[in-house]
């Protein structure tokens, strides 16, 4: 009896606190930050919290958004889908206006329907699962990171539209990363109808000789090879192609856009194309965001910091442009208004992917990767 009484007192007082809280901050803009802030994946979530804190501090110091101060509501989802749904419910009941998060694709996917029903825009700095935007199931979802297939898309578009190839061989190193990329590349080439995949194969990592595969590429009549994988196999395949006097173009990925590749493949590396993340080091906003982080926390920022910084800026800018925290108005503003962020001057397409964020093509010229304009 006693315990039950105490329980109800606690419940009542929590209710009062929540009610009071709601009343006290009625004229603030509530930015939810959801992600893993404890547990073994915390290192993916904490940098986003820090980015949000830095952005909010700066914006509040400059008078807030449309005269209102921004308030952070930080909730932990430990990267688990079953907890992320609770996190979402909690944020919504706390009256959140927009959410920065979640971090992991699985947790994001679980939480999105709840936000969708409540009409809340969610922007992730890190969830790269392609279906989150491309399925069209989550019109309330945006992200400031390129999706998993964006790299393959970039390579295929480059091979077909820029270089004009019609016959492409797709190779991979049988690993998760390489094969995943190669699968997307094959799918995109087939969907484009402008070129065909003349060969699709996995090479065995660590083999002593790749000349059989090289001969097979020659027989397939491919004009270019798109390779998914890392630099040790890529440099072997390129070197053996050149040894067998095959001069066709070699296009690869971020796993190959590594100086070790150039060092090992030597002169055979010349002319090889590789996609890699866009270079933000010349963006003054990126530099100042990192400098602020160092000043505030006395360390280098962690994973997805710049993407999170960009997402916080984009969300708050959209609210400012829309002059409202209403769902449709924010969505419209995100698509129509560009925001200067550490990852570039971005807006979003109708599916929710950031325009202008993602990968660039590089080519080896005189022993260095140079961005292809």
């Amino acid at each position, binding site marked *: 009896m006693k315990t039950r009484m105490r329980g109800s007192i606690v419940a009542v007082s929590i209710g009062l606190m929540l009610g009071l809280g709601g009343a006290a901050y009625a004229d603030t803009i509530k930015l939810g930050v959801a992600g893993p802030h404890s547990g073994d994946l915390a290192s993916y979530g904490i940098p986003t919290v820090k980015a949000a804190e830095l952005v909010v501090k700066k914006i509040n110091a400059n008078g807030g958004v449309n005269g209102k101060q921004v308030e952070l509501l930080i909730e932990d989802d430990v990267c688990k889908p079953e907890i992320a749904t609770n996190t979402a419910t909690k944020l919504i009941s706390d009256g959140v206006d927009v959410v920065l998060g979640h971090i992991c694709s699985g947790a994001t996917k679980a939480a999105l329907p709840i936000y969708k029903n409540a009409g809340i825009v969610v922007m992730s700095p890190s969830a790269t699962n392609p279906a989150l935007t491309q399925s069209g199931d989550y019109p309330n979802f945006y992200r400031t990171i390129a999706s998993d297939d964006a790299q393959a898309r970039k390579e295929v578009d480059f091979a077909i539209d820029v270089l004009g190839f019609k016959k492409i061989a797709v190779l991979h190193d*049988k690993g998760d990363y390489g094969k995943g990329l190669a699968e997307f590349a094959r799918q995109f080439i087939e969907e484009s109808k402008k070129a065909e995949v003349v060969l699709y*194969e*996995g*090479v*065995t990592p*660590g*083999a*002593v*000789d790749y*000349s*059989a*595969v*090289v*001969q*097979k590429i*020659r*027989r397939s009549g491919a004009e270019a090879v798109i390779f998914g994988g890392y*630099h*040790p196999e890529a*440099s*072997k395949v390129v*070197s*053996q192609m050149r*040894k*067998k*006097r*095959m001069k066709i173009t070699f296009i690869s990925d971020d796993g190959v856009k590594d100086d*070790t590749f150039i*060092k*090992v*493949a*030597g002169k*055979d590396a010349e002319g090889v194309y590789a996609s890699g993340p866009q270079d933000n080091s010349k963006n003054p906003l990126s530099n100042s965001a990192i400098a602020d982080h160092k000043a505030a926390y006395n360390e280098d920022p962690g994973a997805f910091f710049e993407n999170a910084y960009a997402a916080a800026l984009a969300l708050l800018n959209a609210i400012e442009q829309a002059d409202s925290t209403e769902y449709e108005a924010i969505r419209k503003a995100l698509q129509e208004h560009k925001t200067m962020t550490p990852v570039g001057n971005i807006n979003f397409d109708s599916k929710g992917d950031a325009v202008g964020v993602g990968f660039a093509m590089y080519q080896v010229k005189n022993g260095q990767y140079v961005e292809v304009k």
Partner: protein
Amino acid sequence: MEYFIELFFSGLTRGSIYALIALGYTMVYGIIGLINFAHGDIYMIGAFTAFIIATALSIFGFPLLSIVILAALAAVIWSSAYGYTIEKLAYKPLRHAPRLSPLISAIGMSIFLQNYVLLAQTSDFLAFPELIPDLEFMEPVAHVVGTTDLVILVTTAMAMLGLTLIIKFTRIGKAMRATAQDRTMAMLVGINVDRVISMTFIIGSALAAIGGILIASHIGQINFYIGFIAGIKAFTAAVLGGIGSIPGAVLGGFVLGLTESFATGYVSSDYEDVFAFALLVTILIFKPSGLLGRSDIQKV
């Protein structure tokens, strides 16, 4: 037809590489019945030695031919020293222990050597200098057989021939055969068995070093881990051909190399290893001692 020939030569190159390493496995097994799992790592040590010497010499501006000869000599001597030392340290004390003990010791040596090179050198891939220049007269057929392919084929043939001659016609060769047949009896007739075993390790390691140099210049890169995969494949080749038999190791190497090459060419390189090991299983079902193996008492 041309495609067939291209694949055939790919398979030959691959097969020669396997054969060169397989010779070392098969020799050691023939004499003391031990599967020397550290053999693949001796091959890696040979490649690293050649890399270091060749890089150093090219800094001093030596001509290519002298670099090749000096690097090869250094690699052969250094690897042989490793082979000799490993035998003395890790296998000789266990010679009368149960069969499993030296086998475990061999696996331990393999892991030790990999980590030793990892710590003493680097975990990165290193660009191996081009020790075999492209020859002018090979240019018309370079798309099928390159200069390195040719050098690998010729070297393997010479190594196998030389080894056969040593075993057939020299004193140490006779002693080796005697030791292989019956170690106790060989000792009783006055053969220094320890010396024979040391010699076997030295010759085997020298062959592995040559293999290391050739393959590293063929593939153009090395790291501490190259010995493992090459070693496993060469071991498969040795078993395929009949472990303990020298022509068997070469035959096994070629059969394995050609199978992989044709499997890649006509089916898919995704299934390269599937075909190679399916072949191994099939042959072992019908000929448990391998293609050219003696079907005497099973040792392991």
